[in-house]
């Protein structure tokens, strides 16, 4: 951000390009805490304003940390591949609101097309396996044994 000098204008960003995504916490968090991954340049003040103005969410406290992405995986050329770093923000909601991360992939009932296709697939696989097995009278012995 450009440097602020005393008496200068307040820094305003008119079309912020900062992303912010909610993540499911790996470690169980208290009821009012939401975990976000934010872009590296955002500060706690920025995150508070972002949530309050754009999402209309009351914020009580924000804590941030930077997660270092590992650099010890290697690709096929033996070069080190870096996983990107990201900033994690733990936001505590004001006004006693609580938040549970929802299940975004609930089981949906399949329609008739997918069900019939699955049945067809299973029948085909069973038929193939039956064909692979040899003579049932040999009791599982492979047929390259003599006699």
């Amino acid at each position, binding site marked *: 951000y450009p440097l602020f000098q005393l008496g200068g204008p307040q820094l305003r960003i008119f079309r912020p390009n900062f992303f912010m995504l909610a993540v499911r916490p790996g470690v169980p968090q208290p009821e009012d805490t939401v975990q976000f991954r934010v872009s590296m340049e955002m500060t706690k003040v920025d995150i508070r304003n972002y949530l309050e*103005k754009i999402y209309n969410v009351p914020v009580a406290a924000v804590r941030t940390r930077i997660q270092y992405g590992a650099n010890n995986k290697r690709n096929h050329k033996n070069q080190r591949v870096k996983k990107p770093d990201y900033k994690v923000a733990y936001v505590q909601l004001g006004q006693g609101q609580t938040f549970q991360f929802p299940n975004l992939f609930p089981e949906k009932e399949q329609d008739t097309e997918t069900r019939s296709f699955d049945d067809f697939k299973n029948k085909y696989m069973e038929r193939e396996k039956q064909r692979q097995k040899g003579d049932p009278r040999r009791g599982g012995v492979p047929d390259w044994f003599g006699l």
Partner: protein
Amino acid sequence: MAAAAAMAALCRRLTGALRLPAARPGSAAAGLAGLTLNLFHKNLAKVEPLHQLKFVHTTVSRKGLEEFFDDPRNWGEKTVKSGDAWNIKQLRGKSSEDLHKLWYVLLKEKNMLLTLEQESKRQLRPMPSPERLEKVEKSMKNIDLVVREREVALRLLQTGHEKPAPGEWRHDFLGRTYWY
């Protein structure tokens, strides 16, 4: 960040001025082409009808953290339908206020798609319709271009210069060209 408050106030005034019809449940893809000024129609439909509606009732979006996630009807689907990205020609026809609001709608949509992507990686499931991310990013880039064009045009009219700060091309001692 502070100017977003001005945007919210503008939206509040405009939602009061707009008399919108009943909510359209078909437009699941907010912010993509085909959605005109009915940006907050979903929220207006949620207002409980009072017995004597003699005054204009306006609401700003009351959703909060739900905006980080898609419509609950789309959770668990294999594909989600979405329209095309915004074209530069379409954007040039919109006013600056509209572009400003569209930027924020697209930003919220991008945040939602990024949360979905991360959650799908976590749950080891395929993300439904990942092409929405590219469309949103392209639209945002186009909005940026259009706004820059307008800024440059305004600056040319007012001052006669294209760029906000003076500069020139220079050569360093190796002969390479750089802008200073």
